[in-house]
């Protein structure tokens, strides 16, 4: 499974952002993931409108001190993890 830069990820049915004890979490069927800075920035952009490329560019700006290449790798890795959890649908 490769993540296409032109695809638009969107949270799959039954996956949504929630809050618990002042923390943001991604709730999924039978799972929950705690979201911190970068992972929260990624997940809030999985709205079916942003392309993967746009998410990468926007986070490269937010985390401008990090190496752009590393930011991209981290994002692709995180999206792949969410895809494996079946938390994302990818739209063309």
């Amino acid at each position, binding site marked *: *499974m490769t993540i296409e830069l032109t695809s638009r990820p969107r949270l*799959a*049915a*039954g*996956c*949504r952002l*929630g*809050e*618990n*004890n002042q923390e943001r*979490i991604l*709730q*999924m*069927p*039978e799972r*929950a993931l705690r979201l911190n800075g970068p992972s929260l920035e990624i997940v809030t952009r999985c709205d079916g409108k942003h392309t993967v490329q746009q998410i990468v560019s926007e986070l490269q700006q937010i985390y401008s001190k990090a190496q752009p290449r590393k930011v991209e790798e981290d994002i692709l890795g995180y999206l792949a993890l969410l*895809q*494996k*959890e*079946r938390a994302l649908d990818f739209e063309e």
Partner: protein
Amino acid sequence: MPHELSNPLALIAELTHRCPLHCVYCSNPLEMQSRSNELPTETWSRVFQEAAQFGVLQADFTGGEPLARTDIIDLVRAARAAGLYINLITSGLPLDETKLSALIAAGLDHIQLSFQGAREEISNEISGTKSHGQKLRVLEWIKQHRVALTLNFVIHRRNVDQLEEMVALAETSSATRIEFANVQYYGWAFANRENLLPTRAQLDRSMAIIKREQERLEGRIRVEYVVPDYYAKYPKPCMGGWGRKLMLITPSGGALPCHAAQVIPGLSFENVKERSLRDIWERSAAFQKFRGEDWMQEPCKNCDRRDQDFGGCRCQALLLAGDAAATDPVCSLAPLRPKVDAILAAVNLAPVSVGAGAGPSPNESLTRPSWLYRPNPA
């Protein structure tokens, strides 16, 4: 210990014991509660509020058949308003298109539709009801909605050879998850155990199939498999550990650390009608009873795995060893493991009437086990 206690993550809301099905492995207790004892809508709503404020993330609506509650839409709305993620575990029987739409509009997040098999005959036999056709209709209706769907299959000797057909069924649906869970031997399943335990050969074959399907479906459908712990080397961390992650509320408001806890003699359970969830979680003697390690016996007491599996299941220890504080007898280190081995030996020697993918044999009625069906409470 209480100082390091964290809050429960999920609330299992057994809304009712009423159910149109009669599954031979039903996890409901042998003594079921009647409709007249069920908690009213307001009490459940308060419980959901308390749960969310206490840090609970998710409510599992189960039963019985949760849709047997006429106030189910209000209950979904109340749990969602409280901020919980709502999971409905249903047979799909009392469902129609209007009710489905209303449930989703009220905030239902995830439907777990339980199947008794991939085919009509076995489903009807196991549930003692004609139910399979309705489930297939429900799958079609769900496709019209944006809601998460898991197909739940309870696995046992009579259907373990149909895994591929079950996966194929899931692939025709909108499911993103399949849960194959072998029967766990409590309640009605314990009474029917000899007819439900798969053979070693069936189990090995099933594990190979699951592995292959997990790889094939990665990224599309998550496939989960719970093996029967009688065949395992070590027990499972039952409920994630006694009083560590989950709280179950019975139809009449009893707060239990697990489905089967009522089989353990000498435990008394608090009721949500009288005390708050937090108070019960932190102080109830039943929840305290098997927390931590003080209650453990040898070999658990000094075992390296004790913080992974917490000594296994307390109810299984009671049922098999006659002592709820014993090492779970399914553990290969347990002094009573030979008892489990003897049960397995009997199962593996007895002739099995279903072969790989075989249809019902012509003399099916001769080989059909004499099931003990669960009745329906008043």
